[in-house]
């Protein structure tokens, strides 16, 4: 479980550049759920994930992961529990080869069967291990880099996985692959939070929706509560009821059920 207790975060406090991307956020993400983090550009989604992962310290308030305060608890305890894939994966690469990049956490935490894990992860990611193993992660295409970053965030079998805009620059097969991974993580009882501008890719498998607007929590509820809102409300989250979201909402209003993902119609129409 992840708990935010009245959390605020300030960039550059006490300087002319001071600003608060997150203000007075209180919420609980239950164990084994898949949460979608929605909001316009600059709403605070990435800051929320970095705080939840213990990489940022809250300026005010407390964050608890499995009951442990992220500030007071030993870093390695939190790191082992969490896997995070960043918005710009190539910015965080540091290893010389794809294998070293993906396997870093598994080696650090002393797993023995690292090569086996690497092959398994490459298989899940639908990447060719033989072709990419010794390549520099910096030479990968945008989509391959995103997949490698996701691979390195799940290699150590973390209980909690945060994915920051995981479908950006992925093609139809890539998005379908990420969905499959997220579905498997959820089936294994892991807690997953995804920030995205494309909720339709995950709505049918999500447990709850977290909506942020200008750094404040403006919605936290089930997928059905989210789909019951009036059309104008979605603009608060930088969304339009169009494309896949339109189809899902229409179907939900008629039947009360959430449509399954339809990649062909929603991505390349």
């Amino acid at each position, binding site marked *: 479980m992840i708990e935010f207790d009245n959390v605020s975060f300030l*960039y*550059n406090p006490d300087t002319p*550049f001071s*600003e608060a*991307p997150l203000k007075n956020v209180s919420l609980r993400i239950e164990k084994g759920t898949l949460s979608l983090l929605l*909001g*316009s*550009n*600059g*709403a605070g*989604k*990435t800051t929320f994930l970095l705080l939840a992962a213990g990489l940022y310290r809250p300026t005010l308030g407390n964050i608890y992961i499995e009951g442990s305060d992220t500030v007071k608890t030993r870093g390695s305890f939190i790191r082992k529990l969490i896997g995070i894939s960043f*918005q*710009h994966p*190539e*910015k965080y690469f540091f290893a010389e080869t794809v294998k070293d990049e993906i396997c870093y956490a598994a080696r650090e935490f002393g797993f023995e069967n690292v090569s086996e894990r690497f092959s398994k992860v490459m298989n899940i990611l639908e990447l060719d291990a033989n*072709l990419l193993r010794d*390549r520099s992660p910096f*030479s*990968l*295409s*945008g*989509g*391959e880099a995103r*997949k490698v970053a996701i691979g390195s965030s799940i290699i150590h079998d973390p209980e909690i996985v945060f994915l920051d*805009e995981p479908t*950006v*620059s*992925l*093609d*139809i*097969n*890539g998005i379908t692959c990420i969905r499959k991974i997220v579905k498997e993580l959820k089936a294994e009882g892991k807690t997953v939070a995804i920030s995205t*501008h494309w909720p339709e890719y995950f709505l049918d498998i999500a447990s709850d929706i977290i909506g942020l607007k200008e750094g404040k929590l403006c919605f936290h509820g089930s997928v059905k509560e989210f789909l019951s809102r009036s059309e104008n409300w979605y*603009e608060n989250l*930088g*969304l*339009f009821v*169009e*494309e896949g979201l339109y189809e899902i909402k229409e179907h939900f209003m008629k039947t009360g059920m959430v449509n399954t993902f339809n990649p062909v119609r929603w*991505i*390349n*129409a």
Partner: protein
Amino acid sequence: MCPSNSEIISVNIFRAGYENFNIFKDFSLTVRHGEFLGIYGSNGAGKTTLLKAIAGFPPPLFEGEVIVKGRVGYVFQNPDNQIIGATVEEDIRFGLENLPLDCETIEARLQETLLTFDLEKLRSKDTLTLSGGQKQRLAIAAIMCLDPDVLLFDEPFSMLDRRERRAIMSLVKSLRNNQITAVIASTNMKDLTFCDKVINLNGGESLDRVR
């Protein structure tokens, strides 16, 4: 500046790739002045490699020829690779101040860009604290204000929220009347609906979409 309807980009690649694999083999492409060309392809198909080659940065293994008759503006896939100013204003200014422009023109272009891209409110903001989408908007603004002859966009809308995506797409679309030439790469065909022609790097046939 090229006369209308003449070739502004001409690419002839015999072989191009990295280390031990080829991405392009016997590939050629021409773009006419004022044309909007979409490059569609799955991940790893060579979209970024092709754009970089047009911009003058071919991959390590390259045999071929690229001719571009005009000034090129490149909007990177990852805006962090491009943003260098400490604030939004400084980042837009940097490019302008490196062009042979007088102070009045620089100020006027800066103001116009801040307004057009809805960046006025973020003007003094530290670029390190911008969100992913805001960075993408800034990256596009900082290049478009330089008024290049050829604009190269690598997944330009990927990080924008739906509202910003609509706004920036219509801005890019509006450039069609300014006789600018643009090449836009994306994994999503919806990003390319306003292009005159879309080429498919997945090995399929070119998809002509004259509008």
